[in-house]
């Protein structure tokens, strides 16, 4: 490096590189990228910064260095939570990934009957708040539980309940990742193994597992992060077993100790950030495994394996259905399990704490607005980041901001929002306590996955559309509206769907920033359960589930009906 700078003055003839003049499109696109960057700075970066600075402050705002961290680790009750969180998350992760691997193997590598049905059943947990499995587990194994004897005297309130609930809730997430990893294997490797007369046992360990290893590692980190940052399950079923996620809630909502909440939030940020980095690395490698010439693997029927897998998958699917079913029956029975007469008394939410039916309609509105504005902002943003010519440094920074929320647990983001927006000195303070802040926070919370979906879709379409348009002197926005958007419509709808379902079911980020007139359904579940109205809580959880499920079903019908016709051009 040093020699290079020394040599430079010897070449006075080296003229400055030419710079291209900016056209109208360049100005508009760059302006929009900068605007998006500012939006993400305000809705993601500054709240996180507020959280960070809060952890170094005393209650009166003085800078106290690491005093809060010292106080945290000096308190054994709090410091224990770290260990609790870690081992419970590890255990849940191991069980969940193992089950998901077996299930995914059944779905992708065998000819067992009913694979379509199994696929649908496995998606159930994603449509419900994480509170739902916890409530069902209380009904099954709690103090008056139906099958309490199955625990042989152990209590469901604590690690056992948390692990069971978390495995249920994270199962679909692990399944999606592992199914993808198993589905993109190369049939030629299996043919080679067969030709070399490798035993099926050896083929499994030398071909199947190595092929799926990045997916497995990725699943481990994703599940671990989900569990350690989840708040719904331990809140309902954790009893006196403290974990980091419930500590934040207790510190902030219970004791109004914001500084300590910020400290716990930062600690929670570590595993999530680590998982984020590992996941990014793994996904890059997984894609590289599949060459363009790979031949997709098609399983052959094998009576023994197919039957064995059918039995195992049925068991898992049955467990999922039982957990959902318990909440369902608990909500429609008059007083389950003593009075099983069907009744809608538990749906009379207006008579309970939690905001009543209004919470549900708030949730619908919030989810609808999130899907609408979130999809518009995220897809347009991804387009700008991908397609703006040159401008590399700024685009790279905006891309980083777009991926940042993936590393931030909802609870931490929500806490950052309190610190940032509830500050009277902040000119944006007026949105605190409104529906707007819930929508903005939820968009930020789920920004990254949606952004990645959009980027993937944009990368798949011809990179030369923009060049051709520019050479035909057509402004970029016209090509965006007429070509890019219609071609990416399936991905756009996927994003809208993802945002809607998550906005309906999420508790973690919004639990800190809702106001009395903006209570949400999932939070109502939490508050009713807290108040001892467990059956109405189950009922509300079922309403949320039903809404998400119906939306999903309508979406599927739409994609098969209308979309199929509107997207005629895809057919040959």
């Amino acid at each position, binding site marked *: 490096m040093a020699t290079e700078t020394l040599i430079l003055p010897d070449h006075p003839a080296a*003229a400055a*590189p*030419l*710079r*291209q*003049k*900016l*056209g*109208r*499109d*360049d100005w508009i696109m760059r302006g929009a990228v900068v605007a998006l960057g500012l939006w993400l700075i305000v809705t993601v970066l500054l709240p996180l910064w507020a959280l960070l600075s809060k952890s170094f402050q005393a209650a009166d705002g003085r800078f106290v260095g690491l005093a809060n961290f010292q106080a945290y680790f000096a308190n054994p009750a709090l410091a224990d939570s770290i260990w609790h969180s870690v081992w419970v998350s590890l255990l849940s992760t191991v069980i969940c990934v193992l089950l998901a691997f077996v299930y995914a193997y059944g779905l992708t590598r065998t000819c067992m009957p009913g694979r379509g049905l199994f696929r649908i059943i496995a998606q159930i947990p994603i449509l419900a708040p994480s509170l739902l499995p916890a409530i069902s587990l209380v009904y099954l194994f709690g103090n008056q539980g139906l099958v309490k004897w199955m625990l042989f005297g152990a209590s469901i309130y604590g690690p056992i309940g948390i692990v069971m609930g978390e495995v249920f809730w994270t199962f679909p997430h692990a399944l999606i990742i592992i199914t993808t990893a198993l589905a993109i294997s190369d049939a030629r490797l299996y043919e080679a193994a067969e030709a070399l007369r490798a035993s099926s046992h050896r083929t499994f360990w030398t071909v199947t597992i190595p092929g799926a290893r990045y997916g497995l590692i990725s699943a481990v980190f994703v599940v671990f992060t989900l569990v350690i940052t989840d708040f719904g399950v331990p809140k309902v079923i954790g009893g006196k077993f403290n974990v980091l996620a419930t500590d934040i809630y207790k510190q902030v909502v219970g004791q109004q100790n914001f500084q300590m909440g910020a400290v716990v939030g930062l600690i929670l940020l570590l595993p999530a950030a680590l998982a984020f980095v590992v996941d990014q690395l793994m996904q890059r490698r997984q894609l590289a495994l599949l060459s363009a010439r790979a031949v997709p693997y098609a399983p052959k029927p094998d009576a023994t394996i197919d039957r064995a897998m059918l039995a195992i998958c049925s068991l898992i699917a049955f467990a999922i259905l039982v957990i959902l079913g318990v909440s369902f029956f608990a909500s429609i029975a008059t007083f389950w399990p003593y009075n099983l007469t069907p009744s809608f008394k538990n749906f009379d939410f207006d008579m309970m704490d939690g905001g009543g039916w209004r919470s549900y309609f708030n949730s619908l509105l919030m989810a609808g607005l999130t899907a609408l504005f979130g999809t518009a902002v995220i897809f347009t943003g991804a387009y700008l980041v991908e397609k703006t010519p040159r401008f590399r440094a700024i685009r790279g920074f905006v891309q980083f901001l777009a991926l940042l929320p993936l590393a931030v647990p909802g609870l931490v983001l929500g806490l950052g929002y309190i610190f940032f927006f509830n500050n009277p000195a902040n000119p944006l303070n007026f949105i605190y306590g409104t529906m707007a802040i819930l929508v903005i926070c939820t968009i930020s919370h789920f920004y990254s996955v949606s952004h990645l979906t959009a980027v993937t879709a944009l990368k798949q379409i*011809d990179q*030369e*559309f923009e*060049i*051709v*348009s*520019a*050479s*035909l*002197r*057509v*402004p970029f926005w*016209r090509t965006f509206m*007429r*070509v890019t958007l*219609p*071609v990416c419509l399936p991905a756009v709808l996927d994003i809208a769907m993802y945002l809607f379902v998550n906005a309906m079911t999420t508790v973690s980020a919004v639990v800190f920033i809702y106001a009395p007139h903006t209570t949400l359904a999932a939070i109502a579940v939490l508050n009713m359960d807290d108040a001892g109205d467990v059956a109405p809580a189950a009922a509300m959880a079922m309403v949320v589930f039903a809404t998400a499920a119906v939306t999903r079903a309508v979406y599927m019908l739409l994609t098969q009906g209308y979309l199929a016709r509107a*997207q*005629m*051009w*895809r*057919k*040959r």
Partner: protein
Amino acid sequence: MDSMPTREPYLRIRNLSKKFGAFTALDTVDLDIMPGEFVSFLGPSGCGKTTLLRAISGLDVQTTGSIHQGGRDISTLPVAKRDFGIVFQSYALFPNLTIKDNVAYGLVSTGAPRVEIDKRVKELLELVGLPEQAGKYPAQLSGGQQQRVALARALALSPGLLLLDEPLSALDARVRARLRGEIRDLQQRLKLTTIMVTHDQEEALTMSDRIVVMSHGRIEQVGTPDEIYGRPATAFVADFVGKMNFLEGRILTGKRANVGGAVLDFGEEVPLAEGAAVTVCLRPEDVVVRDIGEHSDNRLAVQVGVMEFIGNHFATTLHASGTNLNFSADFSINAVRDLGISSGATIEVALPPKRLRVFAQQRSATA
């Protein structure tokens, strides 16, 4: 295009360089392209041909140097302010729009009335021979048809310059051969200045008025297809275009060299001192096997080695008796049949002096 007696180049490229960090993709390129000319940029991948096209189109502006198009300095203009139509290897047709809407895409933005647009689209589709396909979607057409739609779309705004980026590489051999002729024919009818980037020498040789052979970011030679093939200016061009024997030898006199023990005469004097190391280039198809007599220059008795049947000719390896000289030669089927050439036989061949190209051995010294 008006045809003034002193023709100004339509595209004037001066001192063009492009650097990507420490890597030099284009190294001080100068090039003039005349109005109505079809010019191909030919070279292996990484030679800079695509970089040069991207500089001309404004997709990747050069680091230094200037480009003038029709007298206008376009060196730093944004893409939309330049005047060209472009066709890519991928076609880049908008998949959700019909053929008609694809072709009309640029016309609609001009604000022309609907009737005029329809008329122009019809004209363009007839021009490329697809008048019946207007209502279909791109995925319903064959690759060759899609490429022609892309061409019609690029021509819609009557650009002054047509850029073709490997336009035929994605097509199968038969379609490619047919489209070669069609594109060339269209270009000549419209008298449209056209630049094509290709790595396929056959494509460049059959379609172009002139070929620009490039290597390592530099222009190796600019010339008509005949010049490029028959009189390659450098050993690189000789090697890259067509098949070539490279025979190592030493200069004896200005018109003669010792090549592996055989003495070969050249057609032209070579300005090299006696004893200088040279490479003598000879195309396999230039080896003469018929009508060899006492008067034939560079007459050699050779032993026939391997004979490979290629279909329309035989590719053979020959060894000149009593020397270390080995080279390959292509013999027509009827020559092999008439003269009874077979593997192991000894025959007489001649290497016409005019067809030998001589280069001083400095290929490794150029770096």
